[in-house]
């Protein structure tokens, strides 16, 4: 194990997978120079046949990814900020998520789309969305949201080696955070939640960027004698429903934390799954800690006010604990 920055783990995964399979190609706006640091150095190593800057034309980029993948390549498309997914949404929702079915399964679409999401840097409404829930709604694409360096590396490798379109949601504001990463070649399976903190009183299901405030909350709760179990789904499609429900069966209480806007969020869906499959174990209402149904304001104080933090998580846990 070595401690590595989140963004570095991503960069390593790209290097290793491009090394491993020469059919892997990567393109997007300014991937040659790399704004986030995730694609740094790839051009030098792999050359412009496999790493290409594109013009600004997201609608075409997503469609090209489909065309190149259907023609036998493993395509990695970097969309920069997750808000630009909207710009390229047509080929995502109408092609990427549907073409395999529509053609009767004639093709596979090994596509990995990288996009940086999340608020907290005063990037304002058009550069701060957390939109994995939209992608979950589409049905035909996988969605992963790693919360730490090891999962970032392992899930990205699984995505690139996989044969289905996968959105890899980068916690862009967390790129500098360190975490232990295995030294050997490893992949992280899709559809298996992790339990980074075991507990017995309450389950906190927490996604991506929200793990950090969740851990802060767990610490404070422990001081108050509340033992919280943290479940990190890691992949939202496929979703480890059994793993989540298993924890709830143990604790009987649950809070779901998600940086999505509340309505039709991943948190809503996870709550719905628990209210169905885990109902018999429930001792209290299922609380969601999410962004209210607004877009991100620019001013740091206003942004902080709508972004869920440890305080909101603690309050929700106390509520389901009946305190």
């Amino acid at each position, binding site marked *: 194990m070595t401690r590595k920055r989140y963004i570095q783990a991503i960069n390593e995964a790209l290097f290793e997978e491009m090394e491993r399979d020469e059919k892997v*190609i990567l393109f997007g706006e300014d991937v040659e120079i790399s704004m986030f640091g995730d694609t740094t150095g790839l051009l030098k190593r792999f050359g412009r*046949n496999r790493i*290409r800057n*594109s*013009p600004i*034309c997201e*609608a*075409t*980029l*997503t*469609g*090209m*990814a*489909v*065309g*190149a*993948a*259907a*023609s*036998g*390549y493993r*395509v990695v498309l970097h969309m920069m900020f997750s808000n630009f997914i909207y710009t390229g949404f*047509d*080929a995502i929702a*109408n*092609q990427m998520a549907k*073409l*395999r*079915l*529509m*053609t*009767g*399964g*004639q*093709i*596979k679409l090994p596509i990995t789309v990288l996009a940086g999401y999340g608020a907290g840097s005063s990037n304002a409404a058009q550069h701060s969305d957390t939109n994995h829930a939209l992608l979950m709604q589409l*049905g*035909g694409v*996988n969605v992963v949201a790693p919360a730490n360096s090891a999962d970032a590396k392992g899930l990205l490798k699984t995505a690139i080696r996989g*044969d*289905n379109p996968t959105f890899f949601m980068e916690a862009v504001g967390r790129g500098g955070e360190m975490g232990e990463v295995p030294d050997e070649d490893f992949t992280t399976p*899709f559809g298996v939640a992790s339990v980074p903190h075991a507990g017995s009183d309450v389950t906190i299901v927490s996604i991506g960027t929200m793990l950090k405030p969740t851990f802060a909350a767990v610490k404070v709760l422990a001081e108050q004698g509340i033992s919280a179990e943290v479940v990190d789904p890691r992949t939202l499609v*496929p979703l480890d429903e059994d793993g989540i429900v298993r924890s709830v069966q143990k604790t009987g209480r649950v809070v779901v934390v998600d940086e999505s806007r509340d309505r039709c969020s991943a948190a809503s869906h996870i709550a719905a799954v628990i209210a169905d499959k885990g109902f018999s174990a429930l001792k209290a209402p299922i609380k969601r800690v999410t962004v209210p149904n607004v877009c991100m304001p620019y001013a740091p104080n206003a942004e902080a006010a709508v972004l869920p933090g440890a305080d909101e998580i603690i309050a929700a846990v106390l509520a389901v604990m009946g305190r």
Partner: protein
Amino acid sequence: MYEQMFLIRCVEEQMSADFHAGNLPGAVHLYIGQEAVAVGVCEHLSDTDKISSTHRGHGHFLAKGGDPKLMMAEVYGKKTGICQGMGGSMHVADFSKGIIGANGIVGAGFAITTGAAWAAQLDGDNKVAVCFFGDGAANQGVFMESLNVSTLWNLPVIFVCEHNTYSEFSPSDTVTAGQISDRASAFGIPVEVVDGNDVVAVWQATKSAVEHARNGSGPAFIEAKTYRIHGHLEAEKLFLGGGPYRSDEEIESWRKKCPLKRFRNDLLSSDAACEAEIDDIETRVHERVEEAVKFAQEGEPADENLVFDLMFLGQKP
């Protein structure tokens, strides 16, 4: 080429009859009147070359060597269809023949073909990709975006615009400003504007375009002027009620310019073929169409569980 054209015509006339008899589910957009374009273009392509198509895709499918039986069964919604009944008329595709799909989203083919052309370039074995699209689709911005990327990356792609004077129910000049070919010229792409009802003209224009793309000189553009004889979709009479958007005279005038009649006459008058040969072809085609319909009718219904296997490869949805 005549056989191909005649095949498209007969298959579609059959579909039209089938549709109006209530045998086909879903929407059906027919290519009748535009056959010369698909056939003139595809004559230059092999199975490893790729084409993308539109909502009006039967002609492209057949011209590129797709099997009429498999297509007919697809449109009938059968398990034996080329997409196992999952796609239907708007989504006929056969990747083994380089037919990367009809598409129900107007303009979707631009980017997909550009991506396929990138793959062809990387493969390095002189394949090309052809994007068929309508005049209406040329108003989608992805057209310009794809012209830009393919010029910059020097991709082996040929954009073939089938200008049939309507964009759904809108006369083209009410929704399309200027000449579509000028939009491609703006990128320095070589363009040719041809009579799309003249299969030989299409064939010739494509010859140079395909050579250009194959020898690594980058994208090319062809605009073929043509006309769709049937409605935008077969069902249109049912819902447009009393609101016709074009005159019977107009349709009649284009019927006279029928690409099949024209090519037939050319073949006969130039002694390239005699009546008997053409009759043979036509008989053969009629048999193939009958066979296709039979195949479609006798096919098992689509498998209802298949959808769960096909959304992802090796993963449940």
